[in-house]
């Protein structure tokens, strides 16, 4: 007997085989499409690795784009990213403007010949000095309105009775201060507020319930300035280079400026630095302007102070000084660190013949023309929001990254809500807002200087504990690693 024909099963087997092959082909197609998308997303963004904090772009892609934009490379096959090259292009101009400001300060300060000077801050128990000023300066043939603040505060004194090893103590103080300021200050100038906590252990709380949790949270409040050195120019060869990641916190000995280095570029993080605009008064809703946390500075020999016995009664003056670079990535905030047209800062430690250390500090910058800049461009906003929603895919198609959500492109119309409020208040009140309520641009400028005064004060006051902790700043062998490496205490 013939077995029954199996012809009825063949179409089913064939269909099953076709379905399997179709599924496999579909899987391969998905692999290819997704693989190419992931490869393409990764190509220009570069890294997300351990030093994600820097987030620099792939060098050769940045070079290619810069060439397309008509920019010239510093060197052919430049090893620098596009942001770094924008910074490097600004350095000479920044140094020149910084020197202009310093020359102006050196002339006006001793003579106390400011166009306008006003009291700024007050500290108690010590005869400190503090004032702000407005003036103008010639920069590049044009007059630039400037403002600034000067403050001098007591720092330390030798704790030995006068006359008992008095001369030695003062000289020792000078030697210690020389090392501390010129070698270590920029490595240890950030610090954390002490934070009490009750030690408990709980498993990590899910994001949903975290706001309800009473468990102590980690994360101390950081204050002061955190410096990292990024780029340098060697004095002998003129070579411009980038410090290695491992060297970034170990700021050079400032005595190397002028001998080993012409200049260095430093990134500074100013912790807890924001500017409040309270149009309705204290205790009511206000606008908090977060001033640029990360800023770029250029440090050169003419802004650093190294003076031995500069005048009778002073054993030595040692100080850091720098000129502010414009942030390579423009943003919403139009004034503050990273947004100045010209600005310098100097923090000097003066050791007197009795060993007392005082710290005069000065900050000078152009007066703001704008605080915030918000572009009015609904189409651009829509594209940027779409970029956010599509995790960057739309932005790559349209060329409008989400990071530029509110930043205006050069030349685009924009408005400043802060100054707009000030001008409106003045207009609507016929000037009374300014006379009676202090709602004015000038008051905003003074508020900014007060913020700066407070920041300086905190930085110096905070550094005092570190200064006193170390027995001998000149003995590098005995210094803790976090001081030498600048990893923060």
């Amino acid at each position: 007997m013939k077995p029954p024909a199996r012809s009825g099963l063949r179409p089913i087997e064939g269909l099953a085989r076709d379905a399997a092959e179709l599924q496999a082909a579909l899987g391969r197609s998905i692999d290819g499409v997704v693989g190419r998308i992931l490869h393409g997303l990764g190509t220009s963004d570069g890294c997300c690795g351990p030093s994600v904090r820097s987030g620099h772009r792939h060098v050769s892609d940045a070079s290619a784009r810069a060439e397309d934009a008509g920019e010239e490379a510093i060197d052919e096959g430049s090893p620098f990213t596009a942001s770094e090259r924008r910074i490097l292009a600004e350095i000479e101009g920044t140094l020149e403007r910084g020197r202009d400001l310093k020359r102006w300060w050196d002339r006006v300060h001793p003579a106390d010949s400011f166009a306008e000077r006003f009291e700024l801050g007050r500290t108690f128990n010590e005869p400190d000095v503090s004032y702000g000023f407005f003036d103008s300066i010639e920069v590049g043939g044009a007059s630039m309105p400037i403002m600034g603040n000067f403050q001098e505060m007591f720092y330390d004194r030798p704790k030995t009775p006068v006359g008992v090893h008095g001369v030695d103590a003062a000289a020792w103080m000078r030697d210690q201060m020389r090392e501390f300021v010129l070698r270590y200050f920029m490595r240890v100038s950030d610090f954390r507020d002490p934070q009490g906590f009750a030690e408990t252990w709980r498993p990590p709380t899910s994001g949903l319930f975290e706001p309800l949790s009473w468990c102590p949270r980690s994360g101390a409040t950081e204050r002061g300035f955190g410096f990292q050195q990024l780029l340098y120019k060697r004095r002998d060869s003129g070579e411009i280079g980038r410090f290695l990641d491992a060297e970034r916190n170990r700021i050079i000995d400032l005595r190397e400026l002028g001998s080993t280095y012409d200049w260095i570029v430093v990134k500074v993080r100013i912790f807890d630095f924001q500017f409040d605009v309270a149009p309705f008064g204290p205790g009511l809703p206000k606008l908090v302007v977060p001033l640029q946390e990360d800023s770029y500075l250029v440090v050169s020999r003419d802004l650093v102070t190294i003076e031995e016995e500069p005048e009778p009664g002073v054993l030595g003056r040692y100080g850091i000084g720098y000129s502010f670079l414009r942030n390579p990535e423009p943003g919403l905030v139009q004034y503050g660190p990273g947004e100045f047209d010209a600005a310098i800062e100097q923090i000097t430690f003066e050791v007197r013949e009795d060993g007392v250390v005082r710290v005069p500090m000065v900050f000078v910058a152009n007066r703001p023309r704008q605080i915030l800049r918000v572009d009015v461009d609904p189409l651009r906003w829509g594209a940027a929001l779409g970029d956010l929603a599509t995790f960057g895919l739309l932005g790559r198609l349209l060329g409008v990254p989400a990071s530029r959500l509110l930043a205006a492109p050069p030349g685009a119309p924009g408005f400043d809500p802060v100054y707009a409020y000030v001008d409106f208040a003045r207009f609507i009140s016929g000037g009374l807002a300014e006379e009676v309520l202090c709602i004015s641009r000038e008051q905003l400028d003074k508020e900014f200087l007060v913020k700066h005064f407070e920041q300086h004060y905190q930085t110096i006051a905070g550094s005092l504990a570190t200064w006193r902790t170390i027995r001998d700043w000149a003995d590098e062998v005995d210094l803790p690693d976090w001081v030498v490496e600048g990893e923060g205490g």
Partner: protein
Amino acid sequence: MLSLPRLLESIFSGAGRVVEPGLPILELQNRLAAFLAFRGAAGWSSGGAGRADGLRTDLRRILGCSGAARLWTAEGLGYHHAEAASRSGWEEELLRRAEPLPGELLLPVHSGIGLSLATQSLAAIVRGQEDATLLLEAFLSRASRVALPGWQGTVIEALGLVARLLHPALVPLIGRSLRTVDRTSSSLFWHGVGRGLYFAPSHALSLRSAARSAAVKAIREAPGDEERVEVVSGVAWAVTLVNFGSPQVLESLLTASLPSLEGTDAVEHGVVAALLVWARGIGRDRCFQELLHHRPRSSDAAEAWERRVSEPAAVVFSGLGMGPLSGDWGGLFHHRFVSELSRFVRKASGEGAS
């Protein structure tokens, strides 16, 4: 009575063998970690990409990394520097100018360089600029000029990974073309296809073990027995190295039913090769010892582990000293039986054949 969770596990495991809950997520996490470490390598670069000492400087810095991140980052740095050197036109000098390089990272560096060369070559094939065979010959020629002596194979193997991940439709064409050009290169290519299969995005949301899925696909996609052995070896290599700290993932591969590969040592070669790469690149550290002495809970898995991991590893490592491994292992990816692999490693390490 069959509970609902168990019923769901049975359904999702497909073949009826229950896969450990959470295993697919664990695999996905491990593969993502490897991918991100590779992609993040540019962040380790001190900006010397395209400079002679840039690669050497960057590799020395990552010697401080621990675990598999060191290997993936080294591979990423090889890719990153090769890309930069290619644009500047001096890729062939990249490794020679960068010497001396850390010996323990030569394999991942060459692999990364291979990924760069392969990506460029395949893009040209896709654009249809020239005949695929001519482009592949050019790729092989470039690989031999770029690689340090003895490491050409590692560079070529990356072609398979790139092809499977970016242009899977080209895999059969490239395989056929390479077979006519050079059989050794063809074998290495298919090993790379296996490596790429494990990272294929179509596994990303799989509710089953990605390792098993990759092995099944490897058997299905390979055109012949020789190629099948190489592809599965590549899958096993990738599964082992990516999941070095998660031996239960490797268990799921070892217990998969792969009858067509019985007696070929395909899985064994991949597993032991991965152990060698770890031992060479990172050291016979605690992670290594824990994997080697892992004891699965189920009897099936324990038997498979003993047969496919412990015994082959004992054969290969028994002839090697306890000190850091050395030597050039550029031919490691080419499939060998375990006994041959042992002889290869000893010879490459300079310890002589047994």
